[in-house]
C-alpha cells in the first residue's frame, strides 16, 4: 500500500533525486576539502529566499530557489575574497559569513512577518526542510536541474578532475582553471540549493559530505566514487523517506541524514582495503610477524654463540624473561610453532628449539635489508 501512495512516491522521488545530485557534486566538494562550504552556503541561502519572496510576493519554488542561489553564490564569493585579501583562514571566514547571512535571513523573515497580508507561512520550511510539502512541479524542477548538472559534469569531467586534484598542474596545462573552478562552485551551490527544501539548511552539509565520504572508502577512482556516492545518496533519500512515513512524527530530513550516516559508518568499518576492520586484522598480522621475527633473531644469536646449528634450546633461554608466566610461555611456544610451520625453526624430542638453514637465511636477508 505504501508503495502505491502517490504523495510518498513524489517525496521519495524528490529525495532520491536530491541524493543523486548532492552525491555527485559532493564528491568534488569532499575531494577539494570544501565540505564545510556546504554548511556555510546552505545557511547563507536564507536571506536570498526571504528577499526573493519580499520582492515578488511569490512562493513559487523556482523563484525562491533563484533567490537562494544568488545569495549562496554571493556568500561564496565573499568567503573566497576574505581568504584572498586578508590573513583570515577559510574556516573562520565560513563561520563568520554563515552566522551573518543566516542572521540577516532571520531579520528578513521577522520583517516579512509584520507586513500585513504577506503570508510568509512556508518560508521557514527551508530552515528544517519539509519534504512532505513536495509538489510534482518541484520534482520537475529538481529533475531538470539534475539533468543539467549531470550533463555538465560529464562534459567537463576531465577539467573538474584536474582542478580538484591538482590546481597547480591545471594551471600549468594552460586552461583557465579559474573559470573551471567558478563553474564547479556554481554547480555545487546549485546542488545545495536543490536540497534545502528536503533536508533544510542545517542538515544539507551532511547530504553533501556523507555520501561522498562513504563512497571514497570503497574505491580510489573518482569515476567509481561519483557513481557510488550518487547511489548512496539515492538509497538514503528513499529509505529515509519511507521510514519517516512508516512511523508517525518522524521528520524526513533528519531520517535521511541518519540513514546516510549509518552507511558512512558501515563503509568506514567494512570497506575492503581501507576499512577499519581489515586494517585491524592487517595490523595484528603484521604485529605477529614482527614478534615472530624477534624470536627468530634470538634463535639466530643462540645458534651463532654455540657454533652449532642443531644445538636446541629451552624456551626460557630463547626469550629470557624473569617474570615468565605460564601465559607468556604459551604465547612463546605458539610463536615458535608458527615459525616451525613456516620452516624457519625446528623442535626436537625434548621440546627444545633450534633455527633451521632456511631460518638462518631469512635472518641474514633481513639484516641485509636493514643495512640498505
Amino acid at each position, binding site marked *: 500500500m505504501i508503495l502505491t501512495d502517490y504523495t510518498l512516491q513524489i517525496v521519495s522521488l524528490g529525495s532520491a533525486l536530491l541524493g543523486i545530485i548532492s552525491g555527485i557534486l559532493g564528491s568534488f566538494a569532499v575531494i577539494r576539502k570544501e565540505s564545510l562550504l556546504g554548511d556555510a552556503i546552505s545557511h547563507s541561502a536564507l536571506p536570498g529566499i526571504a528577499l526573493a519572496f519580499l520582492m515578488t510576493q511569490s512562493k513559487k519554488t523556482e523563484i525562491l530557489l533563484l533567490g537562494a542561489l544568488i545569495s549562496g553564490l554571493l556568500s561564496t564569493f565573499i568567503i573566497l575574497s576574505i581568504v584572498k585579501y586578508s590573513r583570515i583562514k577559510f574556516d573562520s*571566514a*565560513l563561520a563568520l559569513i554563515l552566522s*551573518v*547571512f543566516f542572521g*540577516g535571513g532571520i*531579520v528578513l523573515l521577522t520583517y516579512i512577518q*509584520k507586513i500585513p497580508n504577506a503570508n510568509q507561512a512556508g518560508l521557514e520550511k527551508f530552515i528544517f526542510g519539509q519534504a512532505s510539502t513536495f509538489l510534482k512541479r518541484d520534482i520537475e524542477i529538481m529533475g531538470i536541474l539534475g539533468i543539467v548538472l549531470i550533463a555538465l559534469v560529464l562534459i567537463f569531467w576531465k577539467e573538474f578532475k584536474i582542478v580538484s586534484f591538482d590546481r597547480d598542474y591545471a594551471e600549468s596545462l594552460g586552461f583557465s582553471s579559474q573559470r573551471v573552478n567558478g563553474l564547479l562552485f556554481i554547480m555545487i551551490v546549485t546542488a545545495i540549493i536543490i536540497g534545502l527544501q528536503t533536508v533544510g539548511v542545517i542538515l544539507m*552539509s551532511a547530504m553533501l559530505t556523507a555520501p561522498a*565520504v562513504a563512497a571514497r572508502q570503497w574505491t580510489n577512482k573518482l569515476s567509481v566514487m561519483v557513481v557510488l556516492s550518487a547511489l548512496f545518496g539515492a538509497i538514503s533519500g528513499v529509505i529515509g523517506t519511507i521510514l519517516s512515513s512508516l512511523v508517525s512524527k*518522524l521528520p524526513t530530513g533528519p531520517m535521511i541524514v541518519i540513514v546516510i550516516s549509518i552507511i558512512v559508518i558501515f563503509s568506514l568499518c567494512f570497506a575492503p582495503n581501507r576499512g577499519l576492520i581489515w586494517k585491524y586484522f592487517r595490523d595484528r598480522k603484521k604485529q605477529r610477524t614482527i614478534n615472530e621475527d624477534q624470536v627468530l633473531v634470538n634463535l639466530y644469536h643462540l645458534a651463532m654463540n654455540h657454533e652449532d646449528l642443531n644445538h636446541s634450546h629451552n624456551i626460557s633461554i630463547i626469550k629470557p624473561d624473569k617474570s615468565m608466566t605460564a601465559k607468556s610461555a604459551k604465547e612463546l611456544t605458539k610463536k615458535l610453532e608458527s615459525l616451525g610451520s613456516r620452516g624457519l625453526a625446528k623442535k626436537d624430542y625434548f621440546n627444545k628449539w633450534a633455527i633451521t638453514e632456511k631460518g638462518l637465511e631469512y635472518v641474514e636477508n633481513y639484516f641485509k635489508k636493514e643495512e640498505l
Partner: protein
Amino acid sequence: MSPQMEIQIIAVIVAVACSLPGVFLVLRKMSMMSDAITHTILLGIVIGFFMVNSLTSPFLIVGAALMGVITVFLTEMLNNTKLVSEDSAIGIVFPLLFSIAIVIISRYASSVHLDTDSVLLGELAFAPFNRMKVFGVDIGAKAIYSMGGILIINLLFVIIFFKELKIVTFDSALATVLGFSPSLIHYSLMTIVSITAVGAFESVGSILVIAFMIGSPVTAYLITDNLKSMIVLSGLIGGLNGILGYQLASLLDVSIAGSMAVMTGVVFLLVFIFSPSRGLLTIVSRRKRQKIEFAGKSLMFHIYNHEGKEDEALESGIYTIRGHLQWNEKFLKLIIEELKDKEKIYIKDDIIKLTKSGREYAIKSYEEIVSGF
C-alpha cells in the same frame, strides 16, 4: 532597570564571554567547531531532559556541555582513522547528532516546550521575563547571572592558563617539550566553548553564539598582532555589535539575535575594507605599488641589458619597447613617467637611457633578487 537595558547588558555579557574562547578557536583554525558544538548541544539538552524530566535543571547544562566535548572527541576520532579529512569529519558528526536530537524531539517531546526554532534563533526579547529572585526579592534577569557566571569562568580560565593557551596555540610541539599536554589544554578549551555555548544559546540562539565567538575575534584579528590586545578588542567589538544590533532591531522591530549577527557582519566589513594595517584598501594599494615598483625594475633591467648593444635603438626605443616587453600602452606610459620623475631614466633620440643613479639602482636590485634565491 528597564527590559531594554537588561537585554543590552545580557548581550554585552554574552558577547564578551563568547569572544574569550573564540579568539583561540580562530587562531587554532577551529572556527567551524563552534558551529558543530552549538548544534550538537541540543542533543545533550534533549538527553538530559529525558533523564531528569525538567527543563530548568542544571543537569541539562552538564549534559549539553558534555555533548559538546563528545562532538569534538568524535570528530577527532573520525579524523584519526585517516579515512576522512578534518572538515568532512565535522560535516558528518554534527548533522548526525543534530538529526538524532530533532528526531527525539519531534517524536517524544512535542508536548514539552523544547522548540527547535528557539534553539537556533533564541529569543533575547524574552530574557528579561525570566527573573532571578533571592528571598523573594527581584534582583534582575536570570540570564545576567547565569551568563555573568560563565563570563567569570572564562575570564579566569584565560587569565590562569594564558601562557599555556598561547604556547599550545602557536607552537604545540614546544608545549609537549615543556611538559604540559596540548590535548589537555585543547579539551579544557573545548569544555569552555561548550559551556559558553550552552549558557548563551538559551538566550541568544546558536547562530548568534557563532557570530560572537568567531565574528568579533576575526574582526579583531584584522586590527592587531598582539594576542592580549586581540582578546580585549574582541570583547569590545562583540559588545559594540550587541548594542548596535539591539538598536537596529528595535528600530526595525525585527529579530534581535538576527540583527546582532548582521551588525557583526557590517562591523567586520568596515574593518576589512578600512583597517589601516590590513584593510582591503591598504592591501590593494600596496599590491599595486609593488606591481609598479617591480615593473619599473624590469624595465630598467631590460634597458641595462641592451645598453650600448647594436639592437639598443630597437629594444629600448620609446616607440618599439612596448613590443619587447609585451605590456599594455597605458601601463608602460605610467611606468616610464614614474621612472622619469625619479630621474632613473631619461630619453635621448627616442631611446630610453638609464641615468647614473638608475644604473646603480638596477644593478643593486638585480643583485638583491639573485642573492634572494
